[in-house]
């Protein structure tokens, strides 16, 4: 886990590579070329880009119109705006209409750190999952983001892909393979299973390492697809573990934790602890500081697991 890369850059670079061959790919953005890392696309394939200015609603609507004209439309911009300001367009023009638009929502969660809650998107999993007809995906590293970008190009279905802003460790191998709608068992342990999504997955892996040092052997599962959700894998994990800890850069309401609980309500009994952002506007600080404050980093996950095991003990 020494190499680091921002997932948003992995997506932008992969898409440009594919777009050189696939003329149907077009990119729409709302004055977010820099933050989305798509200047390269704009430079190299300007005739296949649409800049709409600071107007997220227009960006999604225009993308839907392009998609309905047989384009593969990619909208790049901040998650906070596309999951809120442009939400009705995502619901109606994209998901309900069934137009092949992929929303690449960058700088998600608390990536913008001290900029505050206007710029955070801690509700997007809950909001997007409640709309039929759109996949909800949170890649956990640059290599997975690359593989998912390839997957998106081959699918005609709408998707909302939430990525972060900052470089994060690469946890997969270039030859790692991913399946649409499937979770990934990263580490097989036994006392507890840590299930995570998005850019906190590497923290979960690190936490497992820390836990091993104190004699706890944790399973780690990466769930990039929040929708469709790999319920079978969760049930299987619950069958083999008495305790599950979920970790997500999202509100504790309506996110991964609740989705896992939903699976378990119909399956094996298992104690679950949800680590996420509580029902409050987060404290001011960098993303790393906010993670630490709410226990989303490796140290916080480790402590929560130990506490959980002791309490359940």
């Amino acid at each position, binding site marked *: 886990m020494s190499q680091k890369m921002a997932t948003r850059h992995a997506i932008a670079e992969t898409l440009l590579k594919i777009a050189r061959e696939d003329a149907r790919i077009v990119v729409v953005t709302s004055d977010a070329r820099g933050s989305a890392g798509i200047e390269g696309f704009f430079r190299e394939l300007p005739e296949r880009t649409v800049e709409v*200015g600071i107007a997220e609603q*227009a960006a999604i609507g*225009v993308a839907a119109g392009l998609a309905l*004209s047989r384009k593969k439309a990619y909208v790049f911009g901040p998650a906070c705006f596309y999951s809120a300001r442009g939400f009705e367009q995502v619901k109606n023009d994209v998901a309900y209409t069934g137009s092949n638009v992929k929303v690449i929502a960058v700088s998600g969660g608390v990536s913008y750190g001290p900029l505050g809650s206007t710029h955070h998107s801690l509700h997007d999993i809950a909001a997007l999952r409640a709309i039929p007809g759109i996949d909800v995906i949170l890649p956990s590293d640059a290599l997975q983001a690359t593989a998912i970008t390839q997957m998106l190009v081959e699918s005609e279905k709408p998707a909302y892909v939430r990525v972060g802003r900052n470089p994060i460790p690469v946890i997969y191998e270039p030859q790692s393979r991913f399946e649409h709608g499937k979770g990934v068992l990263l580490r097989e342990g036994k006392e507890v299973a840590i299930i995570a999504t998005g850019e906190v997955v590497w923290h979960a892996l690190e936490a497992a390492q820390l836990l091993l040092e104190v004699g706890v052997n944790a399973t780690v599962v990466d769930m990039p697809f929040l929708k469709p959700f790999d319920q079978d894998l969760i049930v299987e994990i619950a069958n083999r573990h008495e305790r599950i800890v979920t970790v997500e850069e999202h509100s504790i309401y309506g996110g991964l934790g609740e989705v896992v609980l939903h699976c378990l309500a119909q399956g094996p009994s298992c104690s679950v602890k949800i680590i996420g952002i509580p029902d409050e506007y987060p404290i001011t600080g960098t993303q790393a500081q906010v993670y630490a404050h709410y226990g989303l980093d490796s140290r916080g996950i480790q402590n929560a697991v130990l506490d959980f095991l002791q309490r359940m003990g």
Partner: protein
Amino acid sequence: MKTLMKKAIQLRMDLLQMIHRANSGHTGGSLSSVDILVALFYRVMRIDPTRPLWEERDRFVLSKGHSVEGYYAILADLGFFPKEELERYCRLGSFLTGHPTRKVPGVEVNTGALGHGLAVGVGMAIAGKMDSKPYKVYVLMGDGELGEGSVWEAAQVAAHYGLDNLVGIVDRNRLQISGYTEEVLRLENLAEKWRAFGWEVVNVDGHDLERLVGTFEKVPILAKKPHLVLAHTVKGKGVSFIENKKEWHHHVPSEEELRRALEELNRQLEELENDVSKDGYKTCNC
């Protein structure tokens, strides 16, 4: 032209019956927009009911999705789907929902939430430019709809990209659900607003089929500019007791009201039949 005028009256009768049967619908706005739809669908647009997704087709987006009854009646009349389905409008399981969806052959995009259609039309128009396809994109908006900020976002994008293959149409019936547009929230000067946003604006009587067809056929009047047809209409047009009454925005005609309305429209049909002055102008091939 007479055939076209008769068609518009017939469609008014159809849509009133649909609304009555379904006990649901938007009477006033459907009646005000019928002539615009008739001009587009029977005379102006290049479409093929046997190939709804034909790539060269002209695109139509009903941004004021609530005026759906006349739209469905036209699509059925043109053969996009069997006419019998109109009787199931809004019924359990019918694909004819109270706002248009792509389940209906001929419908391009699911609408109903106001302020969405223009941006989608802009995307279609940009795609047409990218692919050097000659099709045009028509987007019909309500006047009350122009309160949505997203309309003006899309208007800016259209002007920026010089989309002369895009025609916005405003059904300017001066009413919205709670009253006169100018009292609810002033819209005027609408023509100046659109001009200021970089659009070429044309005013037209939205019930004069000959003028409507003539206007649409002139597009593009100016290269590199999107076009806005400000169609001045009467909400509830065609039925005296429905015209200009805000209550009829989504009031459903009762048995008796339907009877009186159909009587009026039948009378108009007869008068038209006997009016030789409307004969002769361009034979309609519909």
